[in-house]
């Protein structure tokens, strides 16, 4: 089913998508919120344009592919499924996700992967092709955030306060740069060749989604940021 978002009531659009059967395509998307909410396994949603906030919130196994940039809180609290973004993403992408994967071709805003966690046999994966803003993986409790840093080779591909409040999971970065100002709640460590090899399925997923040759990603230095159990998080906001 094909829907022209320009001629559809924005408040009805999420319901139309949910009630449709089979694959749905939405054209001329412009700021409509809550698209693909809780989409189940077996369902696919293709969007052209710029969808609004909370795209794919509570996603439950469906696959969403966007040809354009996305705004804030994409994949908020998603449980399972996949969101592929042929563009960049705004702030709080993957907010509280506990399963499934989000693949972003370009950059992501502030607080990507805030509060993501593993749950039961689920472990969420957030892959950023370009660079991330500050507070990457803030309060991360589980899962994997993978930042490939394409087009951002001259500096660490993330901003200040990376991993603030982090207490579980991993942030893996493809970069030669580790900033001096990392919060002391995270510890950087280079990946071994075996560990990089273990990442290969995720790298392949990115290459396949965006038509990027593996030779652009590998070989390269990767390092992981994990929680520092010797320096648990206290507080940031009130003290400084």
């Amino acid at each position, binding site marked *: 089913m094909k829907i022209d978002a320009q001629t559809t009531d924005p408040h009805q659009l999420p319901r139309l998508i949910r009630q449709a059967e089979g694959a749905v395509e939405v054209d001329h998307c*412009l700021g409509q919120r809550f698209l693909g909410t809780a989409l189940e396994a077996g369902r696919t949603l293709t969007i052209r344009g710029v969808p609004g906030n909370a795209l794919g919130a509570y996603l439950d196994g469906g696959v969403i592919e966007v040809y354009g940039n996305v*705004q804030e809180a994409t994949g908020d609290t998603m449980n399972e499924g996949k969101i592929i973004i042929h563009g960049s993403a705004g702030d709080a992408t993957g907010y509280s996700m506990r399963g499934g994967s989000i693949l972003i071709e370009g950059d992501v*805003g*502030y607080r990507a992967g805030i509060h993501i966690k593993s749950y039961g046999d689920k472990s969420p994966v957030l892959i950023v092709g370009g660079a991330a*803003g*500050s507070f990457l993986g803030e309060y991360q409790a589980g899962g994997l955030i993978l930042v490939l840093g394409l087009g951002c080779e001259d500096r660490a591909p993330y901003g200040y306060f990376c991993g603030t409040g982090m207490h579980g999971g991993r942030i893996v970065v493809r970069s030669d740069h580790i900033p001096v100002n990392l919060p002391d709640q995270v510890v950087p460590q280079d990946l071994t060749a075996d560990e990089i090899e273990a990442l290969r399925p995720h790298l392949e997923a990115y290459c396949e989604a965006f038509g990027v040759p593996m030779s652009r990603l590998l070989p390269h230095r990767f390092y992981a940021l994990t929680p520092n159990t010797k320096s648990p998080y206290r507080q940031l*906001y009130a003290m*400084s």
Partner: protein
Amino acid sequence: MQKEGQVRIPSGCAIVGAIDRSGGTICGGDMVRAIAVMHDRSNGLGGGFAGYGIYPQYKDLYAFHIFYAGSSAKETCERFLEKHFDIVNLSKIPTSPHPRVTDAPLIWRYFMAPLPNKLARCQLDEREYVVRCVTRINTQMKGAHVFSSGKNMGAFKAVGYPEDVGEFYRLDEYEGYAWTAHGRYPTNTPGWWGGAHPFALLDYSVVHNGEISSYDANRRFIEMYGYKCTLQTDTEVITYIIDYLVRRRGLTLEEAANVMAAPFWTTIAQQEPERRERLTFLRQAFGSLLLTGPFSILVGFTGGLMALNDRLKLRSMVIGEAGSRVYISSEESAIRAVWPDLDRVWAPRGGEAAIFTVKEGA
């Protein structure tokens, strides 16, 4: 109705700005169409716009936009204006009746110059003279509220959704080199016409999405310098902070941004020595003007726009560039609605002032 202090309304907002750096004109109607995309970020309790370069025929005169509760307030205020200004032109601001914009006050516009004798006698700088007149009207004249007082610019605001407010003020009849727009979702104060954004003083205007938790600390400081916060809203205090820092203390806009959204001490410690010293000085000298809490603001001024997020970037804001045009918005969709083809879309970092100005001589 209940006003500020009598009621608290718990709860976002939407902002859009546009500037043509080569000095070309942008139609007010485009701003209306852009902000309309973010309808759901407002709740109908306030919408407004500020246009720069919209009064070229009176560009050397102060344009006052004033709300009056009734004709007696108007008579009192006009007597005051006649005593202090040479009024070159006055008229009602043209509006169209709109079903969703109701309870309009009387809305008048005055193009004026300070009376030379009066100005000379009080030994004040011309702009300070104008500020004091505005403050006097807004604090002492019941039923009169000056909501715009700059040269070759004007604010237009009301209670309602911003797209309705734009139609009410017939903004498609205005053209300017820069604009800001706001859709309001009031968080602490009731929606009334004076409380809508933008807040403007002289040619500075501010639209704001967020909630400043330092409001009272900021207010106490700024009121020591003759400003009166009459509306209990955080945006009003931001407008006065900018006027104080930039006009009165001579800081650059970027320095003012480093005061309002000062980096964390840990971030300052990592800067090059010269920058570290400057940031330390600003934070120490103007500590009471640090704004805490979430905000994204657009500041309009003669010749440009500044976009600024709080240092933690707790609100969304994106910038789209296309040739000489720059668009700034809470959501990219609002930009794409009117200007679909952009060369570049990016988001400034928290606390990073993005300043865009019209080329000299344009």
